[in-house]
């Protein structure tokens, strides 16, 4: 690799790469996102590459492993350019057939195409699939298109041109102004205006300043930061370099969650490549500007997603947050001015610089600009990552893009904002999803996790789940959070176990108020949210648990019994054989029954019964 010594060098390099690729007639894109990868995507790449080598056609066809395509429900995904033929659920055995017919030939492999549920029609092109057609993919567009581990691929697609634009004459203040015009608000949860944050950090006194990327993604059920960092690490890094230039920072850190080893690997690799090209280090692209960046791995603490705790952790200390009265933009990492932004915020920057703040501001709503990536998971058909303009109705996300609820069940609520967020119930399905509206509904944007729940989800159980999570993740520094959240968890657990007493709900409400007022950091202040919001919309479920000792959604195990339908049971005995506790009795060919005392409600009998004869009461 040759170091780029000027801005022109970058353009020359881009032309060179494009020239080299001229002979490529078709490109096979194989999704290497978390979903597809675990589903066997890795073996597909090897298989395609082997065929290319065997046939000796590597100069005409190309196989690339890309980042997440978003449509994880249908993985592993293979797309063939230039026609963008979309094949879903591809198994490695099918590779030779695809290669013969659609790569070497121009034919289709019919049974791997997407079939529309509504019309039963087969859809060929990626963009025509409703899941994609209803989205507005901007930030999350390149992830499924670029070769995630190759900087050349990113450069060929116009990568680092925003950095070139900035370095060829934009003043730092002008960059900040552009970001301010764009109206970009932090995507990590708080929604603080990014341009304003940059400006205060630029104005802060200090020789040494830092830019930091928050890739801790603690919200369980959200994985867009992972997909971005794994799929287009250079987009994030380019954003950070531009930010560092605007702020005047000379060092950068990427703090990445420890459960994401692949993201760490790709980010490190990307930094190495950028360094070799002289896009990092001293005299970037031959200018005066110097910056280096490092990847740090988190060690599995949710609280380290909070800005001050993250910085403490970077210093090698306990990840304890501090009060908000000292601003990190003035005194952050090692008490020096530090600017922390989320992965998605950073990834938006190159696009804003290239296409202008006005363009970004033209998307979205009055006070929430641009688009947002959501991870739509849970009880929904098309699980995956979805990018839509701010203000898109929830109905569109759940039904048009998400394809509705599996098994004809009824939609109940969407949980957003992670452990600090809340639920949006069915009656608000037409809510225009942006920062303000979510807040008004008693939830919040958070980092963009959307967990869809259907009639079989118990809201009290959901509240207990989040409280349990927060009890474990509370750092223990302040009493309201350390003790208060634990008490809330006890009360809600009692409800789930049928041990609650009248008056417990009122107790809960009191605790909610106190903790919200008195806790030190964002974790504690927002810890009551899951309870407050489920109480607001699903109080009847709480009542059923407390007063009737009944779980309407049939989730809370101590409140349930398993029963066998005498009409349906054929006495095949499979459940009796499978039951690990020996709780099922019955003679062959005669109706069986379950001993309630022995039953541990493990669910094995239900899974095994071929006649659907076992039900929960």
């Amino acid at each position: 690799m040759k170091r780029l010594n000027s801005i022109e060098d970058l353009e020359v390099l881009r032309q060179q790469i494009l020239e080299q690729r001229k002979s490529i007639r078709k490109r096979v894109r194989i999704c290497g996102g978390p979903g597809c990868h675990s589903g066997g995507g890795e073996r597909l790449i090897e298989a395609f590459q082997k065929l290319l080598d065997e046939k000796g056609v590597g100069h005409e066809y190309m196989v690339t492993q890309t980042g997440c395509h978003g449509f994880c429900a249908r993985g592993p995904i293979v797309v063939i350019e230039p026609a963008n033929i979309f094949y879903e659920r591809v198994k490695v055995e099918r590779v030779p057939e695809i290669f013969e017919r659609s790569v070497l030939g121009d034919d289709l492999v019919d049974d791997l195409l997407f079939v529309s549920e509504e019309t039963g029609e087969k859809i060929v092109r990626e963009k025509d699939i409703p899941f994609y057609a209803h989205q507005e993919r901007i930030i999350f567009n390149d992830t499924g298109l670029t070769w995630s581990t190759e900087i050349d691929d990113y450069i060929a697609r116009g990568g680092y041109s925003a950095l070139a634009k900035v370095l060829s004459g934009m003043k730092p203040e002008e960059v900040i102004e552009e970001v301010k015009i764009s109206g970009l608000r932090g995507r990590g949860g708080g929604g603080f205006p990014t341009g304003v944050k940059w400006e205060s950090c630029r104005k802060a006194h200090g020789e040494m300043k830092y830019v930091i990327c928050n890739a801790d993604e603690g919200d369980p059920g959200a994985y867009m930061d992972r997909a971005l960092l794994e799929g287009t690490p250079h987009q994030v890094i380019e954003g950070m370099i531009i930010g560092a230039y605007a702020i005047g920072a000379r060092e950068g850190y990427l703090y990445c969650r420890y459960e994401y080893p692949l993201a760490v690997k790709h980010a490190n690799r990307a930094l190495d490549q950028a360094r070799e090209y002289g896009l990092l280090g001293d005299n970037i692209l031959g200018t005066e500007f110097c910056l280096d960046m490092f990847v740090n791995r988190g060690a599995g603490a949710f609280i380290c997603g909070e800005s001050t705790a993250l910085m403490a952790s970077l210093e090698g200390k306990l990840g304890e947050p501090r009060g908000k009265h000292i601003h990190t933009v003035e005194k952050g990492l090692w008490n020096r001015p530090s600017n922390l932004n989320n992965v998605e915020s950073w990834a938006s920057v190159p696009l804003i610089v290239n296409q202008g703040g006005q363009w970004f501001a033209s998307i979205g709503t009055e006070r929430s600009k641009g688009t947002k990536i959501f991870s739509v998971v849970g009880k929904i058909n098309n699980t995956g990552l979805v990018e839509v303009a701010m203000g898109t109705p929830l109905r569109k996300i759940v039904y048009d893009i998400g394809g509705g609820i599996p098994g004809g069940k009824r939609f109940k609520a969407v949980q957003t904002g992670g452990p600090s967020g809340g639920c949006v119930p069915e009656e608000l399905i037409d809510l225009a999803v942006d920062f303000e509206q979510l807040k008004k509904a008693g939830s919040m944007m958070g980092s963009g996790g959307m967990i869809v729940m259907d009639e079989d989800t118990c809201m009290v159980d959901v509240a207990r789940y989040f409280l349990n999570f927060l009890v474990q993740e509370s750092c223990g520094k302040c009493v309201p959070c350390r003790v208060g959240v634990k008490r809330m968890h006890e009360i809600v657990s009692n409800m789930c176990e049928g041990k609650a007493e009248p008056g417990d709900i009122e107790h809960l409400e009191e605790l909610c108020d106190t903790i919200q007022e008195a806790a030190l950091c964002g974790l504690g202040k927002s810890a009551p949210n899951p309870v407050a919001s489920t109480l607001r919309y699903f109080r009847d479920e709480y009542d059923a648990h407390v007063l009737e000792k009944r779980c309407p959604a049939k989730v809370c195990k101590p409140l349930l019994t398993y029963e066998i339908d005498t009409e349906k049971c054929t006495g095949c005995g499979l459940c009796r054989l499978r039951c690990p506790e020996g709780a099922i009795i019955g003679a062959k060919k005669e109706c069986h029954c379950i001993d309630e005392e022995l039953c541990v409600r493990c669910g094995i009998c239900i899974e095994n019964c071929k006649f659907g004869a076992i039900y929960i009461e």
Partner: protein
Amino acid sequence: MLKDIDEMLLTSEKKRENLIPILQRIQQRHAYLSPDAMKLVALHLGISSSEVYGVATFYNQFRFHPPGKHQIKVCLGTACHVVGGDIILENFERKLGIKDGETTPDREFSIERVACVGCCALAPVAVVDDVVQACMAPSKVEGILLGFDIERERDEREKQESEASQ
């Protein structure tokens, strides 16, 4: 093990901010942090061993006992929870006769719970020896453990055969 750690420490700078990366490297190589290992680190960085222990116990990643040969991590993130992740955990626990955070007495298996491994579209998810197992069900739990049993029997048989032929 301690010798190896000593050598490793030689290559890392004596800076306080290296504490967590050093502990991570030790755990990666030796699967857990022993009290002696933490003392060595404290000595190297010139801080007290209680401080090292304090930091190590704060973060969920660090283990203080050797784990089982096969590590089972069951995801209990929100997406996995709403589709029955806890049922999967219970099934592993019952089958192996241990609770999460424990190791079987023969040191073959250990179970941990994790909060989201970023494969929420495949929920419920378990990670067995670093391989993501998608769409788990109670019968799949049995299948996975059965696979290990068969593997172990085969290994033992091969060992016996090779001993017999010698």
